[in-house]
């Protein structure tokens, strides 16, 4: 959109600074039906669509087409036998992989679109089409291990994207701010020294992993960074965790790319978890990610969880506004909850991992 001539001074500055953000949605190819009552439901993608229609960010959005991942793409992060079994399970019409994880007949094709969307975003960023990308996908991925579907996740989307990048010799930092620990992503990159995995999550909570003492295998010690926070923790402690632990870890690692497992279930309105973040907190975190971006066009946000649709909408808008560097009025950041001591403890584990 071309700015009109009667902009206020602040609007002019915003537009001059605004960085285009690529947006990939698989809205038209989502045939992953989890059932009417399931929180990880098809209406989540339209809620993200509402987020980018917000006037604050609408002008910075560059739409990009998704693509379907091939089996070879998926095999970057998963065992071939798992992929064959998963396809067979889904297409034979069975529905429940575990008590949380439902599939429908269209789930296999949809999961391939989800994993491929991250790859398509990387391709588009390679062509210089934008400064960063937001990939709106489902089902989410960060609980899926190389050999196991769980926690609503079938294919580990961020792991597929990261492995596509390391396959061409690049180093990748993954920041996982979904409220749940990304056990699958951690597991896949546990001994991989080309990938840094850093997670902020609620604990105790599903899936039970992600203690601060989990720092990676001996050849990759310190390349897994976990900051578990207690129920009720507010965004101020996540920012402190980013500023004192995760940000320095990413800077020291000097990645070529930053991939964000962008879940929005740490929002205080989310029904599945107990952290107390607001949309404003996501904006502040995204601003910090932007400040660490290795170069223009080297940051991809991949949607993970987020089950309150209004919170999902406002938080995604806040994220994109922050990444683009445009002003945007949103919920005030949260502060004053528990979590301070937990960040200090996580920092100690981090320091110990670096000594060893």
């Amino acid at each position, binding site marked *: 959109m071309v700015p009109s001539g009667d902009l206020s001074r602040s609007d002019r500055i915003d537009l001059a600074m605004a960085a285009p953000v690529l947006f990939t949605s698989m809205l038209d190819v989502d045939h992953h039906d989890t059932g009417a009552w399931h929180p990880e439901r098809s209406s989540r993608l339209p809620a993200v669509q509402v987020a980018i229609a917000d006037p604050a960010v609408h002008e910075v959005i560059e739409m990009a087409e998704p693509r379907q991942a091939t089996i070879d793409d998926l095999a970057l992060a998963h065992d071939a036998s798992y992929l064959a079994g998963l396809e067979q399970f889904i297409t034979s019409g069975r529905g429940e992989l575990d008590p*949380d994880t439902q599939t429908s007949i269209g789930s296999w094709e949809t999961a391939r679109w989800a994993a491929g969307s991250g790859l398509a975003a990387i391709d588009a960023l390679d062509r210089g089409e934008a400064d960063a990308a937001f990939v709106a996908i489902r089902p989410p991925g960060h609980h899926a291990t190389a050999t*196991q579907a769980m*926690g609503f996740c079938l294919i580990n989307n961020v792991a597929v994207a990261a492995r596509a990048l390391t396959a061409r010799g690049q180093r990748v930092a993954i920041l996982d701010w979904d409220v749940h620990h990304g*056990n699958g992503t951690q597991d896949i990159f546990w001994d991989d020294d080309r990938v840094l995995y850093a997670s902020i999550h609620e604990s105790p909570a599903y*899936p039970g992993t992600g203690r601060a003492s989990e720092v990676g295998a001996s050849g990759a010690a310190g390349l897994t960074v976990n900051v578990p926070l207690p129920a009720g923790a507010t965004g101020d402690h996540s920012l402190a965790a980013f500023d004192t632990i995760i940000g320095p870890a990413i800077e020291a690692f000097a990645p070529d790319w930053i991939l964000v497992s962008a879940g929005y279930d740490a929002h205080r309105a989310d029904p599945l978890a107990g952290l107390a973040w607001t949309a404003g907190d996501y904006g502040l975190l995204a601003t910090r990610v932007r400040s660490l971006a290795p170069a223009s066009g080297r940051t991809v946000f991949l949607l993970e969880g987020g089950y309150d649709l209004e919170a999902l909408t406002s938080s995604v808008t806040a994220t994109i506004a922050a990444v683009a560097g445009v002003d945007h009025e949103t919920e005030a950041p949260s502060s004053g909850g528990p979590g301070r001591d937990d960040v200090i403890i996580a920092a100690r584990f981090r320091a110990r991992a670096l000594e060893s």
Partner: protein
Amino acid sequence: MISRLVIGLDGSHGSRTAATFAAELATRCGASVLALHAVGLLDRVPSEREPVPSHQHRVEILNELKGAWSEPLTGLSPEYRLVDGNPVSALLRTATDPGDVIIVGSRGAGGATDLGSTSSQTAKMAQVPVVIVPSIDDPAPPERAR
């Protein structure tokens, strides 16, 4: 040799059958019993109810685990534990000692692939022996455990 039986319980018919078998095995070999429930993502958002705070939910679910779900284990003084995760990962992370034996009910999901059932996935990946207890008189297809 068999020092502890680790039983996955979720209130289903299959898990009750497994508990009944475990009670007999524990009595015969003098093993201790750990009754475990995996707390999943959906545990706190039952379809018919509003989400409940997680601590309140954990108290409720622990009461169920100690009560009706473990009824066949009465008299064996089992240890009760809630473990976050899906059933497979919770069992695998918990049963790691050499004397552990995992006991799970078969929920009848034994089709063309081994991806679909807790029991077969557990058996495939476990580092300790696994006993899968069939529930042949299961009258209905497997139901979601709540």
